[in-house]
């Protein structure tokens, strides 16, 4: 019981830090996934007087990932069907060319502005249209959400660190006594601090495992998956290998840092 209590405060502190890191990661992933989705749906249509080669078009702006020439047939079909074949062929030649541009990523308003202006500088291009206003609001909402989560994570981080620093003085006192006694019997510094490092590594392991269990549960939660489904994205909530390694690394580094602070602050009693 006694030893569980000793572990409790550091484990809880570490878990809350790991939790906020992972939540931040998930939100960031959602935004990336959503951006990709937007980029693939986002379309810019260019109207040009003469044919423009794909490569030429791409060279106009680095944002352009692909160019699809829209067939004039659909346009003509809508105009009239009572024309004879020859006239249609003629019309096809004289009609302006339509291109749909695929973008490399979801553009910021600034980027789309530059793109439009740049394209219009080409003498052949007469019109540039983009269709994305309804997506834009969701995206803006996600960005806002990310800001909120950032503030939340940073706050949790700072508050936890402050709590840990306060606890540190208690731990320092607790460990100082044992380390002093060991010193009085001639234990070298590495032996005196061994218990401390072992304890903090154990705490880091416990905290990582608790966080692992928590997020494994969350990533299989139907409710969470539904939320992502609703905005049409798929997000890895917790990667068992990569995310666990990162969280474990953070936990170990933090607790070793704390243990080192205690060892550095260790003063021998006289």
């Amino acid at each position, binding site marked *: 019981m*006694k030893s569980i209590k000793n572990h409790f405060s550091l484990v809880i502190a570490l878990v809350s830090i790991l939790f906020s890191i992972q939540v931040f990661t998930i939100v960031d992933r959602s935004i990336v996934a959503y951006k990709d989705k937007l980029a693939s749906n986002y379309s810019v249509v260019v109207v040009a007087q003469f044919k423009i080669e794909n490569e030429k078009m791409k060279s106009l702006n680095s944002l352009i990932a692909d160019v699809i020439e829209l067939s004039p047939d659909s346009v003509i079909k809508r105009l009239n069907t009572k024309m004879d074949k020859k006239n249609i062929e003629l019309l096809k030649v004289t009609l302006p060319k339509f291109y749909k541009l695929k973008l490399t990523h979801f553009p910021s308003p600034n980027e789309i502005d530059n793109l439009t202006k740049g394209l219009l500088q080409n003498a052949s291009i007469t019109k540039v249209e983009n269709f994305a206003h309804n997506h834009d609001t969701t995206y803006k909402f996600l960005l806002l959400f990310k800001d909120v989560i950032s503030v939340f994570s940073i706050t949790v981080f700072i508050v936890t660190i402050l709590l840990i620093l306060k606890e540190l003085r208690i731990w320092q006192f607790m460990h100082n*006594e044992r380390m002093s*006694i*060991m*010193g*009085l*019997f*001639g234990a*070298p510094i590495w*032996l005196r601090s061994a218990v401390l490092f072992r304890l903090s590594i154990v705490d880091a392991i416990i905290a990582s495992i608790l966080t692992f269990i928590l997020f494994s549960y969350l990533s299989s939660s139907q409710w969470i998956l539904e939320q992502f489904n609703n905005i049409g994205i798929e997000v890895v909530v917790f990667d068992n290998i990569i995310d666990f390694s990162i969280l474990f690394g953070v936990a170990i580094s933090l607790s070793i840092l704390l243990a080192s602070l205690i060892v550095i602050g260790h003063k021998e009693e006289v």
Partner: protein
Amino acid sequence: MDKVIIADNLSLSYSNDEAIINKVNFSVNSGSFVFITGASGSGKSTLLKSLYGALKPAQGSLIVGGVELSSVSRSKLNFLRRHIGIVFQDYKLVKEWTIEKNIMLPLIINGYEKNVTKNQVDSLLKHVRLKHQSGKYPQELSGGEQQRVAMARALSHNPILILADEPTGNLDDYSSGLIWSLLEGANTQLNTTVIVVTHHIPQTMNIDYKHFHIEYGSIHEVN
């Protein structure tokens, strides 16, 4: 005869205050048994502190086990301390460790093997009549029992020098007798040098001993 301790013109003080021990000269032969007496606050514990290197000489020289303590390196001091067994006036047991582990401490520090450690601790627990308490924590023991644990710890690694600060201060006659016979045993059988601070020199000592008395910052031998 070899000298375990040589104090030459030794003064001791805490942070520039007046000297608690003032320019004393004395020496202790290897294998001898020494009692130190003196009024409360006369500086007995202070003198012991200097002997295990927790208080540096303010002046003069102090050599313990061949090591000059006024200019000792940390690693050399650690080495020296591994061969000293100390019974502190306030016991200084590790709260979060069991009695058994507390007694083991010097053995662990000296790198003894597990089975040697186990046997040694078992036999010491028997000697101080605490076998049945071995799994308990210090705060679950009475003052006198803690004092006996501290004694067992000081003896566990067969040190060449034992420094004991009022080791029977909290004990009844029976337990005090146990402690004195343990110290006598270490002295006669293992030739351990023993230095004991006490208010009462036991009447039943079967061996030759020296007696130093501390008064007004100086030390003199009582015959």
